[in-house]
């Protein structure tokens, strides 16, 4: 995966570049909005990571400009401003996801990988399949090895999101945002409890576990060890 990091703080930028490289991704750096814009227009990037406060051209204007010029590369906005209205402004400008500073690198990586996944044409996939687990998006039926699994509506949406990002790490915050549309930090292990309920339904009676906990990051559904 090829990532462009548009960030004016050199230390943060280099930290991201190094960390992304360790995760197996290539990252280019731009120190201001204008450089970021021209690089994003020329290069074939999978994801852009854009800081909101940038010299010369601020992050939101840069994204707006790119969108006007037909650049559709997914954008993750980084910002110190973290209120709901700031998030809404960021997404309105054309951003695809919004992460508030300071963030955990695992959270950033999970979101960047989820965005890159979005860039791959996912046009109305009607079913998600992981090993013997099948989620049919048309009939809302879930089966494993042909055996029907009964899920509550919320459990279904939780599984749908996890399977859409199969093979990738999905964080607790991402689940709370996308499955419940909530943007706050719970003080209890509420997401873990929901996931373990789901796990009990899809993994319990089967030999091979599919829903894995990724320590310090979140969860992933995959065929094989986490």
């Amino acid at each position: 995966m090829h990532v462009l990091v548009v960030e004016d703080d050199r230390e943060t930028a280099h930290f991201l570049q190094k960390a992304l490289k360790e995760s197996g991704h290539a990252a280019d750096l731009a120190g201001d909005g204008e450089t970021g814009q021209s690089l994003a227009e020329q290069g074939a990037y999978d994801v852009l990571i854009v800081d909101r406060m940038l010299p010369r051209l601020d992050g939101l204007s840069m994204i707006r400009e790119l969108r006007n010029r037909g650049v559709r590369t997914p954008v993750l906005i980084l910002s110190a401003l973290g209120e709901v209205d700031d998030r809404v402004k960021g997404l309105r400008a054309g951003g695809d996801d919004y992460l508030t500073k300071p963030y955990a690198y695992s959270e950033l990586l999970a979101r960047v990988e989820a965005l890159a996944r979005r860039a791959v044409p996912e046009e109305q996939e009607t079913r998600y399949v992981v090993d013997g687990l099948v989620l049919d998006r048309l009939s809302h039926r879930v089966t494993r090895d042909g055996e029907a699994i009964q899920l509550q509506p919320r459990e279904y949406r939780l599984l749908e999101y996890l399977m859409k990002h199969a093979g990738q790490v999905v964080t607790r915050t991402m689940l709370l945002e996308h499955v419940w549309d909530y943007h706050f930090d719970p003080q209890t292990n509420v997401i873990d409890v929901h996931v373990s309920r789901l796990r009990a339904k899809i993994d319990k009676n089967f030999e091979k576990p599919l829903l894995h906990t990724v320590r310090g990051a979140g969860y992933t559904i995959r065929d094989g060890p986490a």
Partner: protein
Amino acid sequence: MMALPDRISRALSTTAFRVAAITVAVYLVFSGTVIGLLLWQSNRVLTEQVLVTLGAEADLLKAEAQSGDRDAIVRAVATRSRAGGPGLYFLADRTGRKLAGNLSRLPPEIAAHPTGGVFRYSADAEDGSGDRLAVAIPVDIGAGAQLIVGRDVDEQRRFAGEMGTMYFLALGILTLGGLLAGFAASRIALKRVETINTAARSIMAGDMSRRIAVSGTGDEYDGLATNLNAMLERIEALMNGLREVSDNIAHDLKTPLTRLRNSAEAALRERGEDAYRDGLEHTIEKADELIKTFNSLLLVAKLEAGALDENAERFAVGHVVSDVAELYEPVAEERGMGLGVAIAADPEIHGNRQLVVQAVANLIENAIKYSGGPVGGGTQIDIGLNDLPEAVEICVADNGPGIAPEDRERVLKRFVRLEKSRTEPGTGLGLSLVQAVARLHGGSVRLEDNQPGLRVVLTLPKRA
């Protein structure tokens, strides 16, 4: 104490005095013009009347002249001249020799004008020049004789003149009075403004609790003072909030920061990769807690200082509450608690949905964290909603240990954590946030005895 000339010049430069001065000036110009026109017009009317009278007399004398001999007209003029009163006559023959009359000469202003006019004369002076005002007309009696019939209008004119003087004198007095009244009004206005200025100065000097005195008359200055006081109240509240936040940062964030630093140092002192790893993980964990606390603190401060913005919308609150309850139901069950939701109505309120979600989530999390005993068995949390005419009440009740009445106000404050609850993870900002959300919506939070347990009621008005 200001010097007197300074005080006067300040009074003169006030808006009240300027308005008074301008009003007086405009009034002066208009009334002066009106009085002038009036005087001019009345003079004209009087003169015309005199001319009509003179015309009638001239006709009589003309008839006399035509009917009889020359002596008859001379006698008639002489008789009239002697009669006294305002009548003036002058009769001369062709050569200009005076035959009769009480004027000493032919007034040149009249002789040339066949319609008559105004002239000045003197009854005593030989050459006839003087300063008494008269109106006269020439009368054609034929035979080359010259007859002037006139009337002394000096008294009349003098009276009119005196009237004019009186008018203008009255104007002068009115002007003076107007300016004095303006001056007095400006002094009163200055005094009222001065009380505002005095208060403003002591506030600028740092006395934030100072307020502007309200006179109680209910005039516009009272209105201004009341509004300014309300504004000051709000500013003081905001400043206190800001001061509290910086105090909180000093007291409540420094401690965890110190702990974080200590754990990093302790890890450095130990040897071995495992010790380093444990130390770093512990440090990151502590840093994350700090960030959480910091974010909550900023959010509470922002909500307390702000107002509902463009993200406010109308939404069905019953739905939102039962959704949040559904999110926490498995958590409660996992801890052996019952979580019951009894929501019959689904009224709409105007507000920020995400913030209401967070407030309700905080209340449920509090109930889950603090209502269970060590075993947690038999604990029941009940979530309800009262649909009142003007507001909705969201109730989260538990049958746990509850909060003593004397602590109920205190726990709403930032970073206040009761002794029993310190073992649970948390920022000490949960209820502060609930209260901030309630206030932002124009609502309130109250803590009640659930007999046993705690019952928290979040009231949100339907129209914020």
